């Protein structure tokens, strides 16, 4: 599993609370949901509708559509184009 390490010399930014698959997590403010999920060790964002294979982000810039997650209010969204905010609830499949 990919493991991400924060830069020691980066300035801090505060955190927000999001819920992933029903579990609450504290994540850095201002980052994308995709970055947050990867940092939380989430390996699979979705199951491919045709092959049933597990998929996770590839491009992190909104053009590969592998990072699709389910949100409460807005249906399926690209996690890399969504910024974390307090109370955000997403689910992976």
């Amino acid at each position, binding site marked *: 599993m990919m493991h991400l390490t924060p830069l020691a*010399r980066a300035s801090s930014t505060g955190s927000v609370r999001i819920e992933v698959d029903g579990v609450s997590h504290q994540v850095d403010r*201002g980052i994308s949901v995709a970055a947050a999920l990867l940092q939380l060790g989430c390996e699979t964002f979705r199951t491919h509708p045709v092959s049933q294979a597990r998929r996770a982000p590839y491009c992190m*810039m909104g053009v590969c559509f592998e990072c699709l997650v389910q949100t409460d209010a807005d249906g399926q969204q690209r996690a890399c184009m969504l910024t974390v905010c307090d109370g955000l609830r997403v689910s992976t499949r």
Partner: protein
Amino acid sequence: MIDKDVIVIGAGPAGLAAADALAGAGLAVLMLDEQAAAGGQVYRGIDSSRLDAAGVLDQDYWTGRTLTRAPNLARVEIAYQSKVWHIAEGNQVSYLQAGRAQTARGKFLVIATGARERPVAIPGWTLPGVMTAGAAQILLKTASVTADDAVFAGSGPLLYLIAAQYLAAGARIKTILDTTPGANYLRAAASLLPCLGNQQLYKGLGMLARLMRSEVPFHRGVTGIQAQGTSALSQVSWTRGGKRHTLDCNALFLHQGVVPNIEMPLAAGCDWVWSEARLCWEIPVDVHGASSVPTVFVVGDGARIIGAKAAVLSGKLAASRIAALAGVGAAASQGEAQGNSLGNPQNNAPQNNAPQNKPYDTPHDKPLLRLRKRELRMRQFLDRLYRPDEASILSADPQTVVCRCENLRIQDLVSTVPDAGADLNFVKSASRCGMGPCQGRQCSHSTALLARRADPAQHQPVPLRPRSPLAPLSLQELASYKDVS
């Protein structure tokens, strides 16, 4: 309907430079970007960065702040979090701004939507844990994180850049695998001479030297890269020196250059061309970025990969031409004095449909054109040196996934290729390749190569016709257009 003189799509270096110069010339400008802040990809996160003191990103990155903080931008109406999903004739742009339906119309359109990573269709590239060098950069710039024990594989300046940034950040890199074909060094040598005065060359060489001097294993002449694993990446393997090598790995960053995002220019009706030299589609534009559609300008990497510095120049040159056509600004009065060849500068459009190949000869443009030439000389060298080996961007293994969205492999597509006449739209209709949410962004370059493999006489593979929405919309977001005129 919002009416403006100019609509700029994309707030990366080209768009920012254009918008700033246009506003400086007194034109009413609306700039749209899907992100929450300006910077595009190269200066991603620059205004909210936590890395100022970290010594990880070099001066080339921080100069982006002169663009995002350019003085005339205060006069530009900038709409962030704006998804442009439709472009109609007459430069009518439909976009969703933070979920609200909007339509705007510009006398001129400046499309500055930049580039994306070239898809690297190798076995296992769809495994979780395989990402692009650009993805590593985005994680670094926006989330201030690095991946542990990463393997960087591929060819091109951006690969070495992110590896160098990892080094500067003190992150451990497991291995660098360089697929730059040996023959490229000789091919590129002839283009090297004109670059000797360019500081970028020495910066790049210095960066490469630092990498090779570091403890990181740096393997050159690599071919046949494969990502392996069951449900996620666990190993990477490659061929070098006639032998097959394998390494445990759970973070693999691939890179084989970037390709222009041609979707919006195509949606705006611009002509396209396939470049054999750069193995991608480009938008033919003149030195001012004028496309085949009068009033539509395509600047920066979105027309052809030219790099950030040249992107800024292209934005300024487009602004100069537009200002002259609109009859405002310094260039216009110069044009009047010289009796410019475009005819009456009060017209809002060039006099003919074809891109003007003659440079707009004003003192204002001259230094920009000179700098642009210099950048293009550098670019020619880089293009030749880092032209990807075709097998490195589309494996010969028929099990390789080409269309990620529909999970179509090479073997699923080959039967459609002979009848296609290198028209990717046929392949799409016959196989669903390109019908998924990415709309062909991850598969069309690979499919074009497949068509060329089947019939090397096909020099101009036909790209997918763009289909709105150009960015994903929900049905209720689309529904909000029922009342928009």
